[in-house]
């Protein structure tokens, strides 16, 4: 995140650009009408994509805004998924309760882990987060009695307590009411994230990203800002993990594996880490493209690897930089 790359487009004062709101309107609009224009298969894919998007909004608070690349963010996905598994196994099927518990669990993990990780920057931060995610992975993988080992834990589908869905079958719930519940959650969490990055705290994060020393001189409490960003990112990651795990119906250790963390970063990069809506676009495109590719070829990783290389080398600012040329929503 050299200064030259991220500040290429001068920031436009908000309110002056009438069309700026077209970006989120079209983006969320596509998610809103998706169950009507596509079949259940694609709707469920978009369901997962919304879960990933929530997690990625958190990841990008660290990467795009604070300049810290977490390479172990999948640990929070797993936190959310396993929370869902434990609660649904104990007959707590209220999705609201599960989301709140996942957020609490993520906070409990993110505070101590964050305190250690934020002592480092650059590549070392990434390595340390990777180490912690692998610690969680090995715990999930090896402690069979508690975590189900490599088979993971089954998840019974949770439903929002607000709605009575007892008459519908699983598929109808997933592609209907639950889809819109998650969509509402996505919009609310995106809005909260926007308020966060648009606040004085968010400005502090950007100042840290651009120049830590200067930020310190200006009175930004660098370490505290980093820690708060890390915890928020962790909570978003766990909330995303809950959503991602629901259509799969299973919480398994691979959710915490480092390759999963790499894929998360890949999604953000695909959408564009320099844009607020990069995570949303990245998650949707990654999930849909992966699904399409897997039906055509068993060598989808090769294609994805080449795609990632092309993005990294030629389009490091991702697709949102092309969509949002004026940089209305740039980080």
């Amino acid at each position: 995140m050299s200064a030259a790359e991220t500040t290429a487009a001068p920031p436009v004062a908000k309110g002056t650009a009438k069309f700026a709101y077209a970006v989120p309107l079209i983006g969320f609009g596509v998610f809103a009408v998706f169950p009507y224009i596509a079949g259940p298969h694609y709707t469920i894919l978009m369901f997962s994509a919304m879960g990933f998007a929530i997690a990625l909004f958190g990841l990008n608070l660290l990467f795009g805004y604070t300049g810290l690349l977490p390479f172990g963010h999948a640990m929070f996905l797993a936190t959310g998924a396993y929370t869902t598994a434990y609660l649904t196994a104990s007959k707590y099927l209220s999705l609201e309760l599960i989301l709140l518990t996942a957020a609490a669990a993520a906070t409990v993990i993110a505070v101590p882990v964050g305190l250690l990780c934020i002592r480092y920057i650059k590549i070392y931060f990434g390595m340390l987060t990777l180490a912690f995610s692998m610690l969680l992975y090995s715990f999930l993988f090896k402690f069979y009695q508690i975590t189900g080992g490599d088979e993971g834990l089954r998840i019974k589908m949770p439903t929002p307590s607000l709605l009575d869905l007892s008459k519908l079958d699983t598929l109808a719930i997933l592609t209907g009411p639950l889809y819109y519940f998650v969509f509402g959650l996505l919009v609310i969490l995106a809005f909260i994230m926007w308020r966060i990055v648009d606040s004085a705290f968010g400005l502090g994060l950007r100042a840290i990203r651009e120049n830590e020393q200067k930020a310190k001189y200006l009175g930004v409490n660098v370490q505290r800002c980093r820690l708060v960003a890390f915890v928020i990112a962790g909570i978003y990651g766990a909330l995303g993990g809950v959503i991602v795990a629901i259509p799969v119906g299973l919480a398994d250790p691979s959710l915490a594996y480092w390759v999963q963390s790499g894929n998360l970063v890949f999604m953000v990069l695909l959408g564009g880490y320099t844009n607020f809506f990069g995570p949303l676009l990245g998650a949707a495109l990654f999930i849909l493209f992966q699904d399409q590719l897997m039906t055509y070829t068993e060598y989808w990783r090769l294609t994805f690897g080449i795609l990632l290389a092309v993005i990294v080398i030629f389009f490091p600012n991702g697709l949102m930089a092309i969509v949002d040329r004026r940089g209305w929503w740039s980080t």
Partner: protein
Amino acid sequence: MLSGVNILVGGAFHAAVLFLVAGGLQIVFGVQKIINLACGSFYAIGAYFGISALAWAFKLHLPVATFIPVLLGSGLLLALVLGPLVERVLRSIYHRDEHFQLLLTFAFVLMFEDIIRMIWGASPRQTENIYQAFGEIRLASGMNIPAYNLIVIAVAIALSLALGWFLQSTRFGKIVRATAENAAICEALCIDVSKVYMAVFTLGVALGTTGGALVVPATAASLDMGVELIVDAFAVVVIGGLGSMAGALIGALIVGFTRAAAIWIYPEFEMLAIYVLVIAVLIFRPRGLLGKFT
């Protein structure tokens, strides 16, 4: 007593292989400041290529004694092809933020996994009877240890000594170390840094591929062996200290024996023990046991 010796030898064998791969990671990081996630992939592809090389050696009815040189040669050959190729792609973003270099090596991890799948298929591959062909060494009655493990340990020690001599005493080794210290000054002294980078990266790849080739007579080659090993290699460099070759050695020994001991005492802790160690090192000695960086 028998299991004790076996665990020691098993730990040393694991440490020897880990040292090679982590050494490749270290030398690339030390000189080019790139964390090469693909070093595990080079290890995996080295293993598969080693199996093919052994099959070829089998067909030519080469004696068992030549298998080690055949494996080493296959690793080196593979590195000479892959190293410059991958480095050429990485070179395009040397000027960029280090996050992108990390991500580009992750792209290679994805690519290599499918390249291996294309060439060698998805099911694990194994060499038959070669491990046994090296025979066993009898320490006392009922205490046999496989000779192949000892050979690999010896080869790794020899390679580490050769590498140490190369870096400390040869002219090119001194240039490599100078480039690691300050690439800009080296450039000013008319050293072609881009050539040094290519050579160093290829050397790093060679350590990975040779490590992979040496391991195949003892274990099967599988598609996920690369992504699994990188996790261990990572632990090694964090414990030993990023960018330090001596650190790679110490780290590999610690990780190798910790793992062996954990398997012996309490198998559930196999990986957990290593990561607890990693985090302990990061808390109490952030730059690693022998690291230079803060």
